């Protein structure tokens, strides 16, 4: 089977392989297989707790390293000015296989720990210094603002004293005495508390103080203009400086307590202005020093981060790879006696020789002489589905896989979607100009493929880039259908002789048919839409019925491959007859009606829609005046009877055959499967275990889902299948009319855009005309690309995809498989 090339028609043949790997080579073997990307490993220790697996210690160490690498990455990300990270393809590779592997990993561990310690230390000291800076800034504000208060109060104090001098004499004595206790002109006899508080809390603070002190205070406050930014969170807080004058120790201590509870910071301010000036100078000096230290710490941190940035990508890669390797190693079964690890996995049969080469390569690298052994196992389990795609077919396969992964070796609809999907898109999008635009966009993406593949494109553009080959084909087919619809930016091309001679607004047929596409005489005609609608609707039905017929036929290779020959005449043939007898007949009538020259015919051209409806509602009665062909009523009755027979045929035959088979099995004396197998199987495994040690392959043949031979389920399944198919035929055929609907919408949008923009501007004379043409032209181009290409393109894409998923796939696609997910380091990068 290895000399035949794999095709996309079916999924590849997979084999279950068993690898026996000596422990010394295990790590390197898995690394080599990971690079190759061809093996999907099975978990051979399914009932072992993740904390009890053999390589838990190594994984924990790697997780530590991964945490450190993530920490570095987040620190680098937080920097305001970006720090360059050397990309992976540019970094020197870290070799983690071979004899020096363990040493390399240990060195890496130590290095990462060192970097982390240095970085955290720098972060902490930066934080501390920032805190100190903030306090000093606040202190400076407090000093500055309170200086103002004192100056104001001093002025008022002198005023007060002068006024008191004129009052009654005995009181003066008290004043004199009190003056003696204070010293100097600007002495106060009120003490104060000064500090800063959050602006939000200020009013509450005032009110609380007022109540506590019963109004025996004088409070003044002023805003600090600049907000304080918290370095850790980046939140801004606005603060105010307050100063509270009160008399007496008890009051002052109460004020201090309230201030502390409200979260205010209190700063010691001296009454003496000279001392205040000294503190101011000291604070300013310390502030400057602190800023220098802060700047230096910041610069050091930045250099450290730059050094880290040089190697960060390769560290991330190594850590991720090693983690994957050890996780895979955990899936293997350890045979104590022979000191080997046993691995089981799926791989494509074609690639077995490649894998053996890789195994030999791994042994050479690690320097031992004992190669791992690979041999194939026979099994009943269903292998995973693997379609070998290249960069061209990848996109198409992905969009069909999104509906469901194909059952193992089922016919793959992705192969046909390569052409039918862009074609159905183009039927809905047909315009030469728009097709050309999206074709060019795809070509640009494809020509710069290599460069774009490495860059991080973001989600939206990345999705477009992933589907560049789909867009290329969509563009090509759209140009073709654009020629057929004769539509280029809502104008028509006049490439050949028209079939209509036009004089004075009336067109007369001249017996010539426009050979390629719709006649340009229809462009701008009043009844143009009448013709194109009829044409496009009929075309949609024709294309739809043919697409569905093709999809039904795809059942046959599946029935043959899976040896369900009876399904061919219980499912395929009645389905085909049902579909063709009604809708195939409709298609034939459509085409026949077109080939008849109704000017020369004896009857009037009948409405096909009425004909179909009356065929079903009143079979056998066809009015000779409006018949399509002689003998129509008989033919239609026969076809209707055929369709009617197919329904019970579909419904009954398959369950009946299954029932017969069940009877036969029961008649031969077997009990139903599944009852006896379970205890037997466990006996086998324990026996095997005693004989050969614990490290043997566990081929679980019993994990298979048993086929339900419950008869009622079969009947129900078939009923659902029949109803789905018969109703589906009608509704899906009508669903194909969306091909008409979207192409109509596209054509109309295109025409409206032209009429509203360029057609108004094309006739304008002179300089004004040129300027207007340029402006409106740019507007037209932007709207064409954004609305007609992107929006309509996405819409047509979606509807074409729906037609494939629902109308076509429901006729043949089982989609019951699971995806082949090999251990692959390339996939790691994709995930990141």
């Amino acid at each position, binding site marked *: 089977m290895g000399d035949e090339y794999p095709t996309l028609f079916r999924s590849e043949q997979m084999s279950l392989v068993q690898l026996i790997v000596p422990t010394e080579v295990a790590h390197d073997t898995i690394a080599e297989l990971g690079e190759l990307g061809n093996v999907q490993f099975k978990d051979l220790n399914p009932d072992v707790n993740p904390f009890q697996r053999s390589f838990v210690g190594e994984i924990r160490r790697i997780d530590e390293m991964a945490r450190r690498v993530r920490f570095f990455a987040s620190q680098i990300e937080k920097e305001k000015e970006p720090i360059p990270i050397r990309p992976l393809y540019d970094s020197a590779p870290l070799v983690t296989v071979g004899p020096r592997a363990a040493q390399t990993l240990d060195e890496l561990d130590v290095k990462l720990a060192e970097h982390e310690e240095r970085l955290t230390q720098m972060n902490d000291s930066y934080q501390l210094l920032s805190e100190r800076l903030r306090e000093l800034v606040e202190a400076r504000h407090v000093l500055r603002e309170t200086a103002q208060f004192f100056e104001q109060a001093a002025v008022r104090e002198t005023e007060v004293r002068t006024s008191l001098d004129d009052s009654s004499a005995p009181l003066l004595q008290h004043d004199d005495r009190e003056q003696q206790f204070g010293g100097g002109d600007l002495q106060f006899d009120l003490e104060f508390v000064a500090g800063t508080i959050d602006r939000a809390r200020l009013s509450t603070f005032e009110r609380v103080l007022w109540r506590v002190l019963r109004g025996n205070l004088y409070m003044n406050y002023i805003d600090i203009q600049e907000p304080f930014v918290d370095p850790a969170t980046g939140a801004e807080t606005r603060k105010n400086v307050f100063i509270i004058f009160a008399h007496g120790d008890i009051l002052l201590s109460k004020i201090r307590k309230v201030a502390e509870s409200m979260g205010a910071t209190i700063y010691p301010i001296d009454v003496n202005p000279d001392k205040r000036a000294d503190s101011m100078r000291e604070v300013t000096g310390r502030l400057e020093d602190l800023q220098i230290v802060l700047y230096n710490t910041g610069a050091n941190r930045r250099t450290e981060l730059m050094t880290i940035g040089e190697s960060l990508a390769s560290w991330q890669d190594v850590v991720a790879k090693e983690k994957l390797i050890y996780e895979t190693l955990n899936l293997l079964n350890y045979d104590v006696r022979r000191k080997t690890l046993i691995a089981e996995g799926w791989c494509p049969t074609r690639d077995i020789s490649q894998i053996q080469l890789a195994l030999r390569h791994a042994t050479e690298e690690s320097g031992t002489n004992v190669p791992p052994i690979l041999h194939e196992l026979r099994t009943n389990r269903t292998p995973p589905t693997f379609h070998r795609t290249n960069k061209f077919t990848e996109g198409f396969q992905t969009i069909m896989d999104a509906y469901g992964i194909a059952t193992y070796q089922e016919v793959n609809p992705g192969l046909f979607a*390569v*052409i039918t999907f862009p074609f159905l898109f183009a039927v809905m999008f047909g315009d030469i100009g728009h097709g050309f635009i999206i074709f060019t966009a795809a070509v640009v993406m494809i020509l710069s493929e290599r460069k774009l593949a490495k860059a991080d494109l973001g989600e939206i553009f990345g999705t477009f880039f992933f589907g560049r080959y789909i867009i290329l084909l969509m563009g090509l087919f759209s140009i073709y259908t654009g020629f057929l619809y004769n539509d280029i930016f809502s104008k028509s091309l006049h490439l050949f002789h028209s*079939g209509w001679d036009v004089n004075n607004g009336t*067109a007369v047929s001249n017996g010539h048919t426009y050979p390629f596409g719709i006649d340009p*005489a229809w462009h701008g005609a009043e009844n143009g839409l009448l013709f194109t609608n009829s044409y496009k609707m*009929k075309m949609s039905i*024709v294309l739809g019925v043919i697409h569905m017929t093709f999809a039904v036929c795809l059942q046959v290779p599946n029935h043959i491959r899976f040896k369900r020959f009876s399904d061919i005449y219980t499912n395929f043939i009645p389905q085909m007859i049902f579909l063709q007898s009604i809708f195939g007949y409709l298609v034939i009538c459509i085409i026949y009606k077109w080939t008849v020259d109704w000017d020369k015919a004896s009857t009037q051209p009948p409405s096909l829609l009425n004909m179909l409806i009356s065929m079903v509602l009143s079979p056998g009665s066809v009015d000779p005046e409006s018949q399509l062909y002689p003998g129509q009523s008989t033919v239609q009755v026969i076809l209707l009877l055929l369709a009617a027979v197919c329904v019970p045929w579909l419904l009954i035959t398959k369950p009946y055959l299954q029932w017969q088979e069940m009877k036969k099995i029961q008649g031969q004396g077997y009990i139903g499967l599944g009852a006896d197998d379970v205890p037997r199987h466990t006996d086998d495994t324990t026996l095997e275990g005693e004989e050969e040690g614990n490290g043997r392959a566990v081929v679980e043949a019993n994990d298979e889902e048993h086929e339900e031979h419950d008869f009622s389920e079969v009947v129900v399944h078939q009923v659902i299948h029949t109803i789905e198919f018969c109703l589906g035929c009608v509704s899906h055929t009508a669903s194909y009319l969306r091909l008409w609907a979207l192409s109509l919408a596209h054509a109309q949008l295109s025409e409206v855009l032209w009429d509203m923009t360029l057609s108004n501007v094309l006739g304008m004379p002179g300089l004004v005309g040129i300027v207007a043409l340029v402006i409106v032209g740019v507007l037209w181009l932007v709207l064409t690309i954004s609305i007609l290409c992107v929006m309509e393109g996405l819409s047509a894409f979606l509807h074409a995809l729906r037609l494939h998923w629902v109308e076509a796939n429901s006729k043949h696609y089982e989609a019951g498989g699971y995806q082949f997910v090999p251990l692959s380091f390339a996939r790691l990068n994709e995930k990141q």
Partner: protein
Amino acid sequence: MSSSLPTVYILFLAILVGSAGWFGTPKGPNQTLIRTSILLTLACTYLMWMVTYLAQVHPLESPRLGVQE
């Protein structure tokens, strides 16, 4: 006189090109893909052209052009 016969001629042409494509594709990993694509493309493009052509061979109404400016 317009007739539907050209569709039959082009059908033969398409079958011819299809056979050439089927037998002319070199063996290789992409043989199935190329063969399928060629045949499907021929089928789709022929179908659509045929439908467009046939719809205009014996038209049931003629274009009524409004007053041209």
